[in-house]
């Protein structure tokens, strides 16, 4: 730890990134307060923010290469936790999902949230060796295997929302590991084409259940969908966002959609809707800009990473964060079906903010060592 006090290190430390992340998280805490002023979520989130800053700095001043080196140990430990969480009485079942492990005195934490870090490190470790050729099938299979273990365990909880957030990690790593361009394009075209086909086939064969159809219908045509049934969440979120208007309605907090419980899960999944209601278009655009700057700074750091491994770690983190932002905000804006994915740095939840902080800590650590080889 003496090393971190070296002058050079402090000069290279990415203060802006740290401040930006902390600012977004503080803003998120404020919004959590708006969402549930009577509950203690915003206080917990404040404590979480404090812990996260400490953890972020600790990770940032640790040499990421050492951590990548022992990544398999983290990975196996994470898998163990994912198994443990499935054990009844240890794993807590909330809303039909067994995702949490209770920690006496601290509350509960979500292993699937933390498992993203070892998964990223494992992928970066495996794909981080200097490349001289295009991606081989063996490599692809290995990458899929690294991903499949945690995703499979998470699906057993079952937590579909968390598990899909793992896929962009692999996708980014493969994309940056010389997967042939025509394969990428072919996959994109096929994927795009297969969505309507799969939808049609699913509806015809009954594989897509009526309530799932309703969730899609409400996105395609919110005015005529079942707004009181399965389309309720999406419709209420659209109303809440729209109500915010240009400047928001923070002063009329008493009548807010979340206070009257029209908006479900306002402090977690729908924190963006709360932000939209209270700060309006201006607040939302500033938030999206903050994310844009944050992600751009991360990518900037990846470009200057001392090695492939570091670059892959940061880019996988970028992919994961961007994907989560897209899924969460897209859901809040009624563009995507309801999937329980937290908004990075904004949604209430100790596990989410901690794992995001660890990820950003890695990015800072990698940048700190850009001149060291």
């Amino acid at each position, binding site marked *: 730890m003496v090393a971190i006090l070296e002058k050079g290190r402090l000069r290279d430390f990415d203060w802006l990134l740290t401040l930006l992340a902390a600012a977004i998280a503080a803003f998120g805490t404020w919004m959590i307060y708006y969402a549930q002023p009577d509950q203690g979520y915003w206080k917990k989130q404040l404590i979480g923010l404090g812990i996260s800053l400490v953890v972020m700095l600790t990770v940032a001043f640790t040499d990421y290469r050492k951590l990548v080196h022992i990544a398999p140990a983290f990975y196996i430990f994470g898998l163990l936790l994912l198994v443990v969480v499935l054990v009844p009485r240890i794993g807590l079942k909330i809303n039909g999902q067994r995702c949490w492990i209770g920690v006496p005195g601290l509350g509960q934490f979500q292993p699937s949230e933390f498992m993203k870090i070892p998964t990223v490190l494992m992928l970066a470790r495996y794909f981080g060796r*200097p*490349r*001289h050729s*295009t991606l081989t099938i063996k490599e692809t299979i290995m990458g899929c295997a690294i991903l499949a273990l945690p995703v499979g365990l998470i699906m057993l909880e079952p937590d579909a929302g968390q598990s899909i957030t793992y896929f962009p990690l692999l996708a*980014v790593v493969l*994309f*940056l*590991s010389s997967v042939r*361009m025509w394969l990428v394009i072919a996959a994109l075209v096929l994927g795009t084409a297969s969505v309507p086909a799969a939808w049609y086939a699913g509806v015809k064969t009954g594989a897509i259940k009526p309530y799932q159809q309703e969730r899609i219908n409400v996105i395609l045509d919110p005015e005529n969908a*079942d707004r*009181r*049934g399965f389309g309720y969440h999406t419709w*209420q979120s*659209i*109303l*809440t*966002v*729209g*109500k*915010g*208007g*240009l400047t928001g309605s923070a002063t009329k907090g*008493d*009548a807010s*959609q979340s206070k*009257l*419980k*029209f908006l479900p899960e306002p402090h977690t999944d729908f924190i963006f809707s709360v932000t*939209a209601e209270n700060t*309006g*278009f201006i607040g*939302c*655009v500033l938030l*999206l800009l903050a*994310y*844009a700057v944050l*992600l*751009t700074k991360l*990518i900037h750091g*990846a*470009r*200057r*990473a*001392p*090695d*492939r491994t570091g*670059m892959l770690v940061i*880019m996988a983190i*970028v*992919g994961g964060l*961007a994907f989560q*932002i*897209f899924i969460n*905000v*897209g859901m809040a*804006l*009624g*563009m995507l079906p309801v999937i329980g994915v937290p908004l990075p740095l904004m949604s209430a939840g100790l596990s989410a903010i901690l794992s995001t902080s660890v990820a950003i800590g890695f990015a800072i650590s990698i940048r700190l060592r*850009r001149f060291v*080889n």
Partner: protein
Amino acid sequence: MKFEDETQNLKVRVAVIHGLVLAILVVLGARLYFLQVISGGYYAERAENQRVRRLRIPAPRGAIFDRTGKLLVDSRSTYNIVLSGEDMKGKDWNELVAPLSEGLDADPGLLRERLNEASHQAAFEEVTVKEGATPADISWVEAHTLELPMLLVREQPQRRYPSNGTLAHVLGYVGEISPEQLKQPRFKDPEVNPFVKDNPYHSGDIIGQEGLESTYDRYLRGRDGYREVEVDSRGRIQRDLAVVAPQPGQDLVTTIDLDLQLTAEEQLRNSPNKRGVIIVIEPQSGELLAMASYPTYDPNLFSQRISTPEGRREANALLRDPTTPLFNRAIRGRYPPGSTWKIPMAVAGLQQGAITLKNSHLVCGGGIQIGNKFTRCMGHHGSPELHTAIRVSCDGYFYRLGLKMGLDGIMQMVDEFDLNKKTGVDLPHELVSWTPSREFKARFNPHDAEWKDIDTVYASFGQVYDFVTPLAMLRAQAAIANGGRLYVPHLLKEAKPVSAVGPFAARPRQTFDHPDPKLLDIPADQHQLVVGGMWAVVNEPGGTGGAARVQGFDVAGKTGTAQVVGLGKDTGKNKDHSWFVSYAPAFKPEIAMIALIENVGFGGKFAAPAVHNIYQSYLSRAHPELAPRPATAEVARKQ
């Protein structure tokens, strides 16, 4: 890149990811712009609508009083359980039947019927599931707000009528406005009913359906207020946003004198068949002091119990009852007037010159021979003048008077006394009397359609071609009593003013919009002669109406015995109707009345004593000095 890896286009690939990330954020921003900036107002309104609800505060309906301020009808609070249509969109109505019928102890069949009806209504707001909810029902609803948020408890003022049927036909009753009524111009078109502009009707409203409740619904109905509340997603009230207090309806003061009304009803109740009608009027104004029709019914049945299966059975039984209790005999019963018809005949005979003051003699002859048919008189009166003919009710005299006047003369009389028109009383569903005319005979007896002299004979003594409503006959008689002013009989004395409440403007006092009386040309000497005859009916020896005599009070009157079937068969339930029409004091009338007792026989025997008792009741309050004191012997017996 720090490390050399140019062979794989790594820089480009990183740039692609960067571009993708920024593109995603731009797309989200564009969607935000659409939702918040372009459509923000629309969504804000939608959010506002689901947050704010208006709960109706029903306005108390005006009470109804008699002319002395005695309460006849008022309202008390009850609670209804209603189903709000707002919460029913896209839900299966039938699924509610089982839990509701169980939880609220309601008949499932009836419930299904109500829900079915409501679900097919386009502009449906709410449907009543149960009336008169008990405290247990209310707490059941409150305990199930989560599963059944569409259930609401509504305070509903409940009308209270005298349960023994007193004044039922006059007061009428209230009931929920029907979907058909909502479409009628009188309930929605301001051109037809200007009151709907200020106070529109909505489905579920309780309105007057019969009697004065219906005629003066516009005065009695208050203006509903509302409570604007903020609700959460479960419909639970968070706080009040605004309260607009309701404006109560205007109280009605009727012209009815409750004591006279009760006396009149008592007379009918005590009559042999308990069927008949008594109407009392103030001849100088047309104000109705009493209007009793028997048998009667309990209006509370229609305002409260009608929605229950028992209530429906009860109402059906009333509808099928051969004695027609629902029927207001005063304005809807058409009866042959019998000899009461002779009074307007006498007035018209004098007016038209068929008889004169100097020579009013006509032959009785014990009857009259027309062709091969002899129509007899009840006695042999020689050749009486008008005074005697009225006093003894000589049929022979009026056969010949009718023949002298001819059908056209009789029709002229009918027209003069408005006997072929509605009286214009302020009650719904009044019928027009049937009166003699060639068209009426052609319709009445198509096999022998031509009008003959024998028909004129019949028409001249109140049989066969004469079917008048008791009110129309009383109105004519009252005009004769007051010297020729044909007033519109009415029940409204005033609708009391109501002061302004919140946004609702004050409502001014209202009175019956009397049209001026129709003036009849009855010269004073002719008037004197006819009234003298009627006075003699009651007060001279040989008069047919002696039973109506009141000591010290100059009662004038005329009996009538209306044939229901031909002579000889007039026994049992086909007995003649007994009439008595009367006013007093004869030459300065302040009260007039008509009594009809159905199927009992001679007018002097049943109707006249009933009239006598009503005069007694009137005198004891209007002229206590004239009221008969109990005889000394009677006083002694009581002690």
